[in-house]
């Protein structure tokens, strides 16, 4: 008899530790090479670890919910053949593309608690629709028909997410979208009835309910609590005239869609403006990290972009954003958001950001007060672009598409002047952008 160690694998080059989630085998279980031994997660990626050989589980060394460094021995197998140390050190997670990004509650791994011993009941007849996700997740589905209709009318995801759906779990049906398109914002605002009665009168219904955080919410909570606890952060606001950019986008969005089969949003313009502002060495202090009393100034831009997903928020990172052309920037940003939503992000794509952009304007907000994504030192928030009354330079009042810009900065590393200067540079880039350079 020989022994083989099962070790925590490396999931992505920048991952240094992972957490054991659940053991699929117990001590004494016979296993075949390739059988799933346990599930684990690194950062936001959940994966399975397979048995490296045929044999018997001799010892389990790490209990669930424990975080261990990469390479740590998790279990010991008794095997018939000798396994090289190399094979023991590199148990491959089951196939690289299988790594699923946590997009709870869309694809939770089922964890059934053993209930009281039940008598063997016949399995219930399979339901007509074999829903693989709960109603709340069906509610966030966009059917092929809805997506086609949205693309035909140039309606982006931000707008779709604001339309009240009437389907299962609040799903946006094609009919809902057709109604929205035909009635649009011109329609009467939906009547809101005032009932003047307790919200719940059903004695069966509880007045309070508890919703323990799922894994994704726990991550978000930990990250943001750390940010607020450790970073003295201050937000500065200013208003930007988007006339030129909005006109160019309106004039080019149909052609852009034809050429690239993709919707041209404002996001790549915000990204371009942030990058343009960061080219100025005086603004470089806003792009980097603050760790152990040191400001690390980075002269490359890995742009984090906050993306809403069901039940939470994730920040995929577009690495090397400063080196990209307009089309690449637009398409790769859109690709990142899509892959966050479909749960097909690579583990490395949620790490290494140097600055973050959050587009809360998609929800209609005018101004926001974003929280820094540590260890970064600044986050840029973009409010809704909409026609508003503005004072014209020559006197008088005009209507122009404007937006509110927020910059939250780490006051340990920077002061208000530096942040204000950075904000002004972004405004200058958006208002004065050389649009003739934008070829697609």
């Amino acid at each position: 008899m020989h022994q083989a160690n099962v070790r925590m694998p490396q999931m992505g080059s920048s991952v240094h530790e992972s957490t054991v989630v659940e053991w699929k085998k117990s001590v004494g279980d016979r296993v075949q090479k390739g059988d799933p031994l346990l599930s684990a997660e690194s950062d936001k990626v959940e994966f399975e670890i397979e048995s490296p050989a045929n044999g018997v589980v001799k010892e389990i060394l790490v209990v669930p919910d424990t975080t261990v460094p990469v390479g740590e021995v998790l279990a010991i197998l008794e095997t018939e053949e000798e396994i090289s140390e190399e094979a023991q050190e590199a148990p491959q997670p089951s196939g690289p593309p299988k790594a699923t990004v946590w997009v709870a509650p869309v694809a939770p791994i089922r964890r059934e608690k053993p209930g009281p011993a039940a008598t063997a009941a016949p399995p219930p007849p399979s339901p007509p629709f074999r829903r693989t996700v709960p109603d709340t997740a069906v509610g966030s589905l966009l059917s092929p028909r809805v997506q086609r209709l949205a693309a035909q009318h140039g309606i982006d995801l931000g707008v779709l997410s604001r339309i009240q759906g009437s389907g299962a779990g609040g799903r946006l049906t094609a009919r809902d979208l057709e109604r929205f398109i035909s009635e649009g914002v011109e329609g009467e605002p939906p009547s809101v009835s005032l009932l003047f009665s307790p919200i719940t009168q059903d004695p069966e219904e509880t007045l309070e309910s508890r919703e323990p955080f799922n894994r994704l919410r726990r991550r978000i909570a930990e990250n943001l609590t750390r940010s607020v606890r450790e970073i003295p952060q201050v937000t500065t606001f200013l208003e930007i005239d988007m006339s030129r950019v909005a006109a160019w986008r309106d004039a080019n969005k149909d052609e852009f869609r034809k050429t690239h089969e993709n919707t041209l949003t404002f996001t790549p313009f915000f990204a371009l403006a942030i990058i343009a502002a960061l080219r100025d060495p005086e603004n470089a202090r806003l792009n980097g990290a603050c760790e152990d009393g040191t400001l690390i100034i980075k002269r490359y831009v890995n742009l984090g972009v906050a993306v809403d997903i069901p039940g939470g928020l994730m920040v995929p990172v577009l690495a090397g954003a400063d080196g990209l052309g307009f089309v690449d920037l637009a398409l790769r940003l859109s690709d990142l958001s899509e892959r966050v939503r479909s749960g097909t992000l690579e583990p490395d794509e949620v790490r290494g950001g140097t600055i973050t952009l959050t587009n809360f304007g998609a929800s209609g907000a005018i101004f926001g007060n974003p929280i820094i994504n540590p260890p970064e030192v600044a986050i840029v928030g973009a409010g809704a672009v909409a026609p508003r009354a503005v004072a014209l330079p020559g006197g008088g009042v005009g209507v122009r598409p404007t937006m509110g810009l927020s910059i939250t900065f780490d006051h340990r590393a920077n002061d208000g002047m530096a942040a204000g200067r950075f904000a002004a540079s972004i405004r200058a880039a958006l208002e004065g952008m050389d649009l003739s350079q934008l070829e697609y």
Partner: protein
Amino acid sequence: MSQITYREAISTALWEEMERDETILLVGEDIGLGGGAFYITKGFQERFGRGRVVDAPLSEAGFTGAAIGAALNGMRPVVEFQFADFVTESYKMIVDFAAGNHYRQMGPVPIVFRLPAAALTSAGPFHSQNPEPWFFGAPGLKIAAPATAYDAKGMMKTAIRDNNPVLFLEYKKLYNYPIDDLPEALRPDVPERDYTVSFGEARVLREGSDISLITFGTSVIDALEAAVILGAEGVEVEVIDMRTILPFDKKAILDSVEKTGKLLILHEARLRGGVAGEFASIVAEEAFESLDAPIRRLGGLDTPVPMSPPLEKAYLPGTEKVAAALRELAAY
């Protein structure tokens, strides 16, 4: 113009065709003096003689083969099976020798196989089945499935005049269905004049904008009844009768799904291996972007057809099951 039963429509079509073309002959068990199991050919032998209304021995494979031989030699036989279920005896004759002949020998095989099909009420596993799934994959065959007297007469004439072998599904339940009890859409006037109904053209029995309900055969009754129930609940169901299963009207299916975005396919035959699977695949392949909900199918259970009336009712996809499936689609 007149309102006649489905059975009278088939009988009339056969009679008129035999008057028109003397190469047409009928072959089947007890079709002469007996007039056939369902009295479709009663009186035919007296008018057309024993040479053209041939009482066959109890050997489906034998008389099917003989009729195919007659077709190869210039006759236009119409073969009656007492029950569609018995056609399995003749499977090889139909699939290889009739349907396959055009490919092998380039010769037409103008022959019609009349198959009294589907459940009637407690007829049990040997007398209640729907044969189209067994033949759906055979090249060279046409399969007609009329659901109204108008279609039965017009399509029988089309089948007889077609130079290819045609399986003609007749729905026993419809033979003597009281005309006044049929949904309005299923009792169009039947002209006394000569007319034909083209194969491969579906018919919209009820227009609707919310859900497409594709069906054929006796299931059109369930479909129309369920559509009325859903209509009262504010859901407009479009009911389409395919009328021919081979060739089938693909465009009608795709056009309707494009209009509604939701699809229920319904037939009485068992779901597994039923033609609904083919229709659903085509929609998934060619109209994916039109879909606003998963495609749904409804058919018979995966068991033999039970003899017991309550069990048979549970087996069949009746009006309540259709309405329930439509409600789920509407709510999706």
